[in-house]
């Protein structure tokens, strides 16, 4: 068996060393948005179950989801879904080996941030 004593290894510089950059921030936001969406999904599934189980229980759950709290969660979820959507498309574009120079990558980062806000506002008007 190998020696199990921990070995002192040099550490590579991590987040707190690097200056925040648009490319890194927009990548981290993708993860936060994607994982945060589970809150909206839990509420949506709860709401569907309530609709399936009868009018009284539905009224209770629907009341919560259409209150200021529900509006807040679903508006933030909408922003998260659009951000994750655009960042995902950007990921596919990067995967194809395109847009990887700094100028284009930063432009695409702003595109994700501004685009997600615009799409959120449009969606809120449409529904």
């Amino acid at each position, binding site marked *: 068996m190998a020696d199990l004593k921990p070995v002192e290894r040099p550490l590579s510089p991590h987040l707190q060393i690097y200056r925040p950059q648009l490319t890194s921030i927009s990548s981290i936001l993708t*993860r936060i948005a*994607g*994982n945060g*969406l*589970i809150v909206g*999904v*839990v509420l*949506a*599934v709860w*709401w*569907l*179950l309530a*609709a*399936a*189980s009868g*009018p009284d229980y*539905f*009224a209770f759950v*629907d009341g919560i*989801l*259409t209150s200021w709290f529900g509006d807040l969660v*679903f508006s933030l979820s*909408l922003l998260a*879904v659009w951000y994750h*959507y655009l960042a*995902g*498309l950007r*990921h*596919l574009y990067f*995967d194809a080996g395109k847009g990887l120079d700094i100028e284009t990558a930063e432009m695409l980062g702003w595109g994700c941030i501004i685009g997600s806000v615009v799409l959120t506002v449009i*969606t809120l008007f*449409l*529904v």
Partner: protein
Amino acid sequence: MRYLTDRKRAVGKGAAHSGTEHHWYMTVSAVGLAVMIPTFLFIFGRALGSGHEQVLATFARPFPAILTGLVLVIGLQHFRRGAQMMIEDYARGTTRKIAVIFVITFSYFLMACGLFALAKLAL
């Protein structure tokens, strides 16, 4: 001298032992979700706050019901892989194991609940 050929080493699937399966799954599900999500948001957003009768009517129609079912299943499969990757980046040992098991079981739990609700609403 190396006895294994390059091909044979690639067949061993690299450091993660899973090759490109995760990446390819995320690519396919991302494209699928990209097609479905705008319409889904419109249908779900319209149904939310429209009253019980209207919600029953919406999800009794085949298109909204099938689309919502697909978004739930593919979305949660996409989520569970993404969340598992996040956990594997930040947690170790037993904490990692428990968190990964929780994410996988919770994703399937939500899928089952959502599909049950949709079936009951549609039939």
